[in-house]
């Protein structure tokens, strides 16, 4: 992918992350009192709300893509060889896939399994 497209992804995920994290913090700190928000039952009920589960999945993807792409940019500034850039790019894609998959697993398990709400 061209660097300009990756930068566009970085900008888009940055804007989306600000919006999603803001909503998330408002939900967790303002709408519900913080101690209630982090209780096991509340978290499970939040996951089982279809809309909020999709919201959390989107938050997960946006933050991880933005974070790992940022790390890729930093690592590419450290060294300027082609093999290094290739490894960094491959590692970034791998890291995004693995962490998104693991986070998605958590969301899916919370929605369809786990302890009763």
């Amino acid at each position: 992918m061209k660097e300009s497209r990756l930068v566009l992804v970085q900008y888009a995920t940055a804007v989306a992350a600000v919006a999603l994290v803001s909503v998330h913090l408002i939900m967790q700190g303002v709408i519900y009192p913080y101690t209630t928000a982090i209780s096991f039952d509340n978290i499970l009920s939040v996951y089982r709300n279809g809309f909020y589960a999709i919201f959390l999945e989107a938050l997960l993807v946006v933050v991880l893509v933005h974070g790992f792409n940022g790390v890729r940019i930093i690592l590419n500034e450290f060294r300027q060889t082609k093999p290094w850039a290739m490894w960094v790019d491959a590692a970034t894609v791998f890291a995004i896939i693995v962490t998104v998959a693991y986070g998605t697993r958590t969301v899916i398990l919370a929605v369809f399994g786990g302890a009763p709400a």
Partner: protein
Amino acid sequence: MNEVRLIVQRFDPFEDVEPRMLEYAVPKWEGMTVLDALLYARDYLDHSIALRFSCRQASCGSCGMKINGRPRLACYTQVAELGGKKVVAQPMDNFAIIKDLVTDMESFFEKHRELLPYLSRADPRELDKPSAEYIMKPEELEKILQFTYCIKCGLCTSSCPTVATDSKFPGPQALAQAYRYIADPRNEGGEETLRLLDDTHGVWRCHFAGSCSFVCPKGVDPALGIQLLKRHVMSGRAPRKKGEGAKVWATSLDTPSQK
């Protein structure tokens, strides 16, 4: 005594292991520039000081160096504006040292050349034998005018934190000049430059620190040029629309002298 303490970083890569700072007491006079002080030291105190200079009027860009910790032109910096007591002269950062204050500018000019800093036309015959005058509107000139003031002194590149870490990054001078030619309505090329810039180590590595604009002795704002350039790299197109170059060409035939 009316003297200035001139401290010069000395380093000969063929003889020295690391740089050393040597101090010279130089008589001070009104209007004295750092270049004057250095030339006095070289002519009367130590003939071995190596420095590069030419025009003495901030036009050639030869005497760029770090003066009291900031990249400046030695000929354009008065001793009085530095407090008048102590002047520390060091070679520019981000450049290899040839000797003392003389730095190797080869990669700097090479990066400039790589981004094709010249006008091109779809019809190559126009480059050698233009059949009419190419006209720019005042507002078109306004967009690029400040960037044409660049004297290629290297001070912006010397102050750039990205150049310090990424040896493949073209640097603020090359990027600002790339913008200068891409934004020029007389240029029908530019797409190749945009392609070169859309790279892992290209225009996107500028983090907009702005130090390049801060140190430029000619009032150029390379950081602005780079941000404007990013817009064109994102679209992959030079700013003019298709056929507009020809339009400029057509209007050039309609000059008052030719009516």
